[in-house]
């Protein structure tokens, strides 16, 4: 993971400054369309979740607003079902690397068989958003869905890449019978 370059002027005499709320969102993610035949009106399910694996949480804190079939959603889009809003997840970020080089590098793939130390604190996160109502609404008229995530940055300091804030490895939709 690339390390955010430190600003020599950041924070002034006190060093690192107080994290701040950022008005501009991070880079918005929109998935390719995926089939949702399993969520159509003929299929009964009590709950649907969007699961996101491998979420980076090393820098800024943000709310990830999830919209279905609304690739134009941005930070001004109201959070309601008519806009495809399905729910949010929240990331409490580490606040950037406050150590020497290598401090925030997650090396779980290099560990020995007899390494009983605890996992690295920055092992990527898992997030789950329950999207039942929004998925049902979409499935009434479409058999495909796109996922859009709008990251609203709540706290970031000089060590945070506020554009590339939502980084993850995979996502999937699961439905459950009641």
């Amino acid at each position: 993971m690339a390390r955010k370059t430190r600003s020599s002027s950041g924070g002034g005499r006190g060093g690192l400054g107080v994290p701040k709320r950022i008005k501009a969102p991070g880079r918005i993610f929109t998935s390719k369309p995926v089939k949702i035949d399993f969520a159509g009106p003929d299929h009964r399910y009590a709950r649907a979740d969007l699961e996101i694996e491998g979420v980076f949480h090393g820098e800024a804190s943000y709310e990830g607003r999830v919209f279905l079939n609304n690739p134009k959603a941005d930070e001004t889009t109201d959070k309601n079902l008519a806009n495809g809003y399905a729910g949010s997840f929240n990331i409490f970020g580490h606040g950037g690397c406050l150590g020497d080089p290598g401090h925030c590098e997650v090396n779980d793939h290099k560990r020995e068989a007899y390494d009983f130390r605890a996992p690295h604190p920055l092992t990527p996160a898992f997030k789950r958003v329950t999207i039942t109502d929004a998925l049902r609404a979409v499935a009434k008229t479409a058999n495909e869905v796109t996922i859009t995530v709008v990251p609203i940055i709540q706290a970031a300091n000089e060590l945070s890449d506020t554009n590339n804030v939502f980084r993850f490895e995979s996502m999937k939709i699961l439905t459950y019978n009641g």
Partner: protein
Amino acid sequence: MANNIRIRAGVHNLTDPQVSDLRQAYGGLQAISDNRGYQFLAGLHGVPSWYCWHHQGNSRVAQRMEIFLPWHRAYLYTFEMGLRDRVADVTLPWWDWTLRSRQQSGLPTIFTDASNNPLLKFHVNLPNTNPAIVRDTGRDPGDPGDLPTQDDVDTALGRTDWTDFCSALEDIHDNVHGWVSGDMGVIGTAAYDPVFWCHHTMIDRIWWLWQVRNGNGNIPTDLLDVVLAPFNFKVRDVLNVNDLGYDYAAGQVAIPVGG
């Protein structure tokens, strides 16, 4: 309460003398520069010691270390005992961000009153971290209407599976950290903000409410002997708050007796 169990109350229910005692205890801790003091205790969470546990429900590790709730319970206990070393009868109050009044005005005034108030801010003194942090803590709170609601809490409490419940409650917790923003908004400096402890007391209380309803049967057995470093507890030791000497009460009043 019987058996010397101490009661944690809501911030909104504190009397003026209780607020005064709490401020005195915080101020006393903040004035201590050794390992009994506020600077040391706050530094256990993020910078410079990084003992805290968050976001550990991922599938990248053999053992999903879902100990966010137990670790913070041990942490609050340790901090509360430090407060009580300064002022004997003080307990940590919870900040109930779901109250209608909080949804309208945000942070309770005991944390925002600017007159010589140790609950407002703390002077962080970390000249040797990379980069250094030597300054007062700050906040940048959001719109009060964006705080989690009782419906959000009820949804989390309705999740009977441990993993599902932890995930839901930790997300609510993350939301409030981001809402306060400033130093509370990132893991590295969050615990230096005095409101951190009352936010986490609310989270701990919600976990206890869940435990009263659901017991502890869903907690994976392989977590029970995980050590909550650097504290003198394993997960199993912190499951019952009464064993730690405290409980939560929505309200309490002493009844005068005698003539």
